[in-house]
């Protein structure tokens, strides 16, 4: 069964004014959709056609990997944001952040540096790796599962994620993402599954 484009887990205007409906029209309706269509075209009639998305990601490289991983990354990214998000994590997640980064502010600083420092297209991540939380960054389509890590949170720093709303000001986009958009409940659920 071919892969399909998942619906956004919120209304297209839900993230305004921080991420516009126009951005989501292109980002979900064109970019994410294109990765899905490309992947289906690439695996049609091949053994991958009967594999799960995760199995394809772990087994492939080149164009199949790029499109499969970008399908996964975008679906994950949509769940990392919500209307009236941001603020502070709570409970076990907040404790783990304090334990492994020293403080929430220290985490914010490290995550921001990773997202700003990913030169070109890519992603910054909060991951669970060998019992600890870590901040990482990946180029283009690359993602934590390819490195034996569990993704907890991501920000898309391909220019298409922010250029309509923020132009070149990636720093402002990252700051807004953390302050106004992060869905910490989703991140906490990912951690609970991982431990």
């Amino acid at each position, binding site marked *: 069964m071919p892969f399909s484009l998942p619906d956004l887990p919120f209304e297209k205007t839900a993230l305004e004014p921080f991420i516009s409906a126009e951005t989501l029209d*292109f980002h979900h309706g*064109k*970019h994410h959709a*294109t990765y899905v269509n490309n992947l289906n075209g690439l695996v049609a009639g091949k053994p991958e056609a009967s594999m799960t998305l995760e199995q394809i990601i772990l087994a492939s490289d080149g*164009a199949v990997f*790029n499109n499969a991983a970008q399908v996964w990354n975008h679906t994950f990214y949509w769940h990392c944001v919500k209307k009236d998000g941001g603020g502070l994590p709570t409970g076990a997640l907040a404790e783990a952040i304090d334990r492994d980064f020293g403080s929430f502010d220290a985490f914010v600083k490290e995550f921001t540096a990773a997202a700003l420092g990913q*030169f*070109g*297209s*890519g992603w910054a991540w909060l991951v669970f790796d060998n019992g600890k939380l870590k901040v990482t960054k990946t*180029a*283009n*389509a690359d993602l934590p599962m390819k490195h034996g890590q569990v993704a907890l949170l991501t920000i898309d720093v*391909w*220019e*298409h994620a922010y*250029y*309509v709303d923020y*132009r*070149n000001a990636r720093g402002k986009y990252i700051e807004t993402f953390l302050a106004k958009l992060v869905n910490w409940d989703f991140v906490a659920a990912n951690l609970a599954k991982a431990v």
Partner: protein
Amino acid sequence: MSSITSTLAAAVVAAPIAATQPFVLPEMPYAYDALEPHIDAKTMEIHHTRHHKAYVDNANAALEAQGVTGKTLGQILAEVSKYGAAVRNNGGGHYNHSLFWNLMAPAGKGGGPSKELLAAIDRDLGGLDAFKKAFADAAVKRFGSGWAWLIVTADKKLAVVSTPNQDNPLMDIAEVKGTPILALDVWEHAYYLKFQNKRGDYIQTWWNVVNWNEVNRLFGEAVK
């Protein structure tokens, strides 16, 4: 020579590789709206005053931090592996954009490929149509951010290549090395405001504003 052509010729900066430290943001050889309607003025303005300027400032800062002085941009790119990621990314960004501005001109003002260039394109790339297709393919297939190039290799042959991010064929780390004579920026910031996800449309539109006069000149220099 018409006045617009002489203005353009005068404004084209002497080889970007000859720029010396500390680097400065070059002036544009035309107004931001000069490439309309093919490339929009807002894109050109942000691309020059924000993106290119950041590469210049960051390259200078990274070189200063390493105590590197008195070198040309060409010297730095040829040994860029010595200087680390910040110089590779930002020094590359400065050269690539400086070259890119010179390689565009208002539609109808850029001339066409010279007889000599066309002969080389026929010989090495199978003709102008095949070259344009290969170049557009290289540009559209560069996954993520990067550039497509037409270069003259050490044995004076033409080749179409692409590089990731702000790498270029002058760098010692380049997979295929050569002298760039045509360059196309396929970072999303080069086309997103007007073309969004349609990189292919941007590439096809861009042919309208290629400054072939400059391509011909660079080709002549490279095969000398």
